[in-house]
């Protein structure tokens, strides 16, 4: 006998509108994750536009991770036009990207997830009991945003990244000011880590394919090859051989499969696959709190984000130290506009992000393909939720609803990004 068990409409404390429908079908759970955001931004919209406008438009896919969309599109277009930028430009872009990641993780961990951990409904209830932790989180957020405000022009929908470099290079004093802020961030972060790293999370495990960038020297965020659970490795331009999509009529977002099966992207995949590249301090925290990676528990994505923040805050300090003694030669390299095709795969806060463009000789976009992390996680969420619910004994529908929400939130979905993209051939 089929009957609808639970429908969570508009899961709270996630980015974007998503419903989750759970049905009991012949003793098995059937899970459907329905993204409800309107078909807001189509790849079709980019067709016919000048390449110069693309970064500005694609950052509007998402208000929580606009920086990575902006920079990934710039990198893809630079590959299409065979443009190479200098190391100092790359460092500025990496610094603002890290600002974006820190800001995004802070929102996910403390506004979305912390209430679940301490058994409160939301951040307002937490303010009532422990204002200090919220104040500290906001202070950290402010620093992360300041980094991007200064280097990128604005934290939400940045302005300076452009093909060939930046529209405005930071002046000498800026790097030093930001360095002091980044050092303050690193110190202050320690005050809020315990509550996340020591949290008791469900011990549920379900091994899947963990896709992330792979590197041999630096923890990869803006470049690198790809790996599936450190078992298979491939180049960025081969991605279409591995990643395929499924259109589900119940969702305005595409669902993706890796080698025909569900897979997970995000902090957990990154930490699972690149653990050795984390800073010593990050690894020390893992030891102190007994965190073992690779982990196959989707809830560990939460702690992986916290560990990543420790590493990224060190990396940020490192970059800003280098930038403090850098003289920029030029803000933007000269280049010719020509026909070309380029792919850039990066790590957005929530996982693998792919931007792929074909440019006409007059500089207008002929073809575009954008694959966002959350769209890639939908099948994993459905599959994992199915398995997770089967392990729960409680039959109280309210409690089941809560478990559904908690697991969905652990993936940190960004529904706006994932809402339907259609490829134009």
């Amino acid at each position: 006998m089929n009957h609808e068990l639970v429908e969570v409409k508009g899961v709270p404390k996630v980015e974007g509108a998503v419903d989750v429908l759970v049905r009991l079908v012949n003793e098995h759970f059937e899970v459907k994750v329905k993204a409800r955001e309107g078909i807001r931004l189509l790849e079709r919209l980019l067709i016919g536009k000048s390449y110069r406008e693309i970064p500005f438009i694609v950052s509007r896919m998402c208000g929580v991770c606009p920086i990575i969309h902006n920079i990934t599109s710039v990198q893809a277009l630079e590959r299409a036009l065979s443009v190479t930028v200098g190391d100092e430009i790359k460092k500025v872009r990496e610094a603002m990207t890290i600002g974006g990641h820190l800001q995004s993780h802070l929102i996910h961990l403390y506004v979305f997830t912390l209430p679940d951990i301490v058994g409160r409904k939301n951040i307002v209830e937490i303010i009532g009991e422990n204002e200090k932790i919220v104040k500290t989180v906001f202070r950290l957020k402010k620093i992360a945003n300041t980094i991007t405000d200064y280097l990128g022009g604005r934290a939400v929908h940045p302005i300076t990244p452009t093909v060939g470099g930046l529209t405005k290079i930071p002046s000498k004093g800026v790097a030093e000011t930001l360095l002091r802020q980044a050092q303050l961030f690193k110190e202050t972060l320690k005050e809020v880590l315990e509550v996340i790293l020591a949290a008791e999370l469900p011990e549920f495990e379900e091994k899947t394919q963990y896709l992330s960038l792979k590197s041999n020297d630096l923890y990869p965020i803006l470049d690198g090859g790809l790996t599936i659970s450190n078992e298979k490795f491939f180049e960025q331009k081969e991605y279409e051989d591995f990643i395929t999509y499924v259109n589900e009529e119940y969702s305005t977002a595409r669902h993706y499969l890796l080698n025909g099966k569900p897979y997970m992207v995000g902090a957990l995949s990154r930490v699972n696959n690149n653990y050795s590249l984390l800073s010593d301090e990050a690894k020390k925290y893992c030891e102190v709190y007994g965190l073992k990676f690779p982990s196959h528990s989707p809830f560990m994505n939460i702690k992986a984000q916290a560990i990543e923040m420790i590493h990224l805050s060190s990396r940020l300090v490192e970059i800003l130290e280098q930038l403090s003694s850098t003289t920029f030669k030029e803000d933007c390299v000269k280049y010719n506009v020509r026909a070309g095709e380029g792919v850039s795969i990066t790590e957005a806060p929530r996982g693998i992000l792919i931007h792929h463009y074909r440019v006409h000789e007059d500089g207008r976009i002929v073809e575009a393909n954008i694959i966002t992390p959350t769209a890639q996680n939908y099948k994993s969420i459905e599959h994992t939720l199915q398995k997770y619910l089967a392990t729960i004994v409680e039959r109280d529908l309210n409690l089941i609803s809560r478990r559904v929400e908690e697991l969905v939130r652990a993936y940190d979905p960004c529904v706006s990004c994932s809402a339907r993209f259609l490829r134009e051939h």
Partner: protein
Amino acid sequence: MDKIRVGIFNLSSCEGCLVQILNLEDTLLNILKTFEVESRVLGTLGKSEPYDIAFVEGSVMSIEDEIELKKVRGASKILVALGECACHGGNFLVKDFDVGEINEMFPGSEKWYSHPLDRYVRVDYRIPGCPIDKEEFFAVFKSLLLEKFPEQASSTVCSECILKENSCLIEKGLACMGPITRGGCKAICPTFNRECYGCRGLSDDANIEGLLHTFKEKNISVQPYMLPPKKGEVKKLES
């Protein structure tokens, strides 16, 4: 005394304007302590009592959006359109849409559209921009609490840019929309050497012909889709 009830809603959007509100940080902390703020993103969902002020972000792209918008309008004293999508339908991003073409491509799917809020309900105030300027948001919020309706910025982005003594991007050969775009953003993009894209909508007495004439004189090429569209205008995509 009952706390003032503020609702923050989003229809189809990127939630960037909402993130800007979160970026108020310490100020937000005080807002959360002082008022009853209802928002799905913050997880502060309350009972369905009337709102004193409702902020709605995003454009209407489906029947569900329309239903939610009308519900919020019915339940609020003041409704504020938050951001470019809510104010003008996200014209800044779309700019050159022939809806028929899109509907042909996706037979069976809903007809594509991206409508501003005022196509369906009365909007009491608009905070434009993509994203909104967070200081502007807070200034408007305070005024509305005092039941004063703040005036929309009557300057253009161009005038704000001049006041900052930025070097003119039109003089450098870029197609900057500053002269015809509503001010209030402190000319942030031109300050970072990026020509204004008109994300705050047309200024009150925008002289589009004049600007096009200037571009022509200076040999600045303008793609037709780059101009902010006039109200109700739908342009065709060049093939």
